[in-house]
């Protein structure tokens, strides 16, 4: 019963999950093997969106909750590393593809 209420309470999210699974598969279906590495790296940067969770946790932490503050701070740093590093590395890889086209 609780499972059912949980599903109906979160139905919107569940719909998104299911649609995104199909979309994710569809969207990269025709990738040439040359682009496997940059695509993996780009996808790696996109899941860095977890940083938003870290920011929310950090921003909600009470001033005297040192556990949440320190772990949240660490989470923000790690998440930023994932996002920034991921996009920069991908750009560097792809920059080289572009140069040779000319």
């Amino acid at each position, binding site marked *: 019963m609780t499972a059912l209420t*949980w599903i109906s309470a979160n139905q919107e999210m569940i719909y*998104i999950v299911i649609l*995104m*699974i*199909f*979309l*994710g598969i569809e*969207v*990269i279906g025709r*990738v*040439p*093997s*040359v*682009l*496997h*590495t*940059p*695509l*993996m*790296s*780009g*996808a*790696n*940067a*996109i*899941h*860095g*969106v*977890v*940083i*938003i*969770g*870290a*920011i*929310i946790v950090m*921003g909600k932490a009470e*001033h005297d909750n040192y*556990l*949440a*503050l320190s*772990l*949240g*701070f660490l989470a923000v*740093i*790690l998440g930023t*590393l*994932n*996002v*920034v*590093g*991921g*996009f*920069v*590395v991908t*750009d*560097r*890889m792809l920059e080289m*593809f*572009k140069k040779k*086209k000319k």
Partner: protein
Amino acid sequence: MEFSILTLCYLVGSVTFIIGLKMLSDPANARKGNLIAAAGMTIAIAGTIFLYESDGEKLHNYGWIFGGLIIGGIIGTLAAKKVQMTAMPEMVSLFNGMGGACAALISIIEFDHIANNPVVVNPGHVLIIFAGLVIGSVSFAGSIVAWGKLNGKFGDFAFSGQHIVNIIILLVVVASSAYVVYNSDVELNESFLYGILALSLLYGVFFVLPIGGADMPVVISLLNSFTGVAAACGGFLYENKVMLTGGILVGAAGTLLTILMCRAMNRSLKNVLIGSFGASGSSKGAAGGKDQGQYKEVSLSDAAVVMSYASKVMIVPGYGLAVAQAQHVCHELEKMLAEKGVDVKYAIHPVAGRMPGHMNVLLAEADVSYDKLLEMEQANDEFPSTDVVLVLGANDVVNPAAKTDTSSPIYGMPILDVELAKMVIVNKRSMKPGYAGIENELFFRPKTSMLFGDAKKVLQDLVAEIKNL
């Protein structure tokens, strides 16, 4: 009003992720796609910082947030800019691990939050927290091990029955998480949290350790999709749609990418994960050790003469070229031979190097023109009309055992048929087997001559020799 602007930011973010991923799988638009996704990410992050509200309350601790963003941003940019092209795969793995750790930390804080604020907790909420914790920490530990294996810090390690132990650890993790979730309305015990965290980390380590280095790209891609799912758990937790879209999108795309990579190697994912590539290969090497006969060496000047007077030369680059950073000299050699009227092309195996596409990236860095790079099928068609094949630090991708020896761990992998050419010159540092840990008969074939030495050094000497001809 402000909150609806935030909704718009998230919507923009989600759409850019989808478009970005779509463009990333098309060579002409890939770079633009990456930038679009990055722009969407920036909008989503900035929106969260300034507009997010929960229960009518805005975020605080801005000092901490900006401090973290700045520190992470600077380190991330520097690391990504400074890393050498050859070390890209391990860098991606490391960044992936950071994302996994971030997801796990969020779960720890959220658990701590609900454990210390006794309100009625929905078991579904606890389930999501634990899912984020387990998947995030497996991804973190696994990525760190993959990173260490790729840069040679950790070797292969497997003990008998390890798969059984792995399955038991996983079952314990799932069972104890289920127990906590089921009893979450009664009590939430933090010792469970840390126990599960420790076991998940252990599982991540054991999961990746026995897998051979040659299969690391597949594992990194798989862990990448794990982190995606962990990020999506965060999205569920905060009903945050951009996290959910981004996370699940990467989870699904990453899983497909993993399968595509396996397919390029003509192996199944199961075979990669439980096959323990490295372990079986090395044991066979020790037991087999059959006499392969003699190999012959070729001198630098002979090699230079043969190549200068050939009409068609095919270069087969491999990880050895990447390690030696020899892509620029390689391009120089190619230009010099072309000036002498030799038709020079590159034969690129889909999994040459440490990652699919690794060689293309590397040669592009050295300005090698795109139309000189042949894919495997094209190259195999052209080998019969090729005079000299120069194998630069590639091994498993030209190993005939993949076609003939059913007991070989790489049996069934499509290879470059270099033997169809009139002559094969193999540059390697020594006679040591390649990453898959297996002998290569090619080196003992009558058509093959060995040219030992570091790829960069050898190529420089070759260029000098050709100049003096």
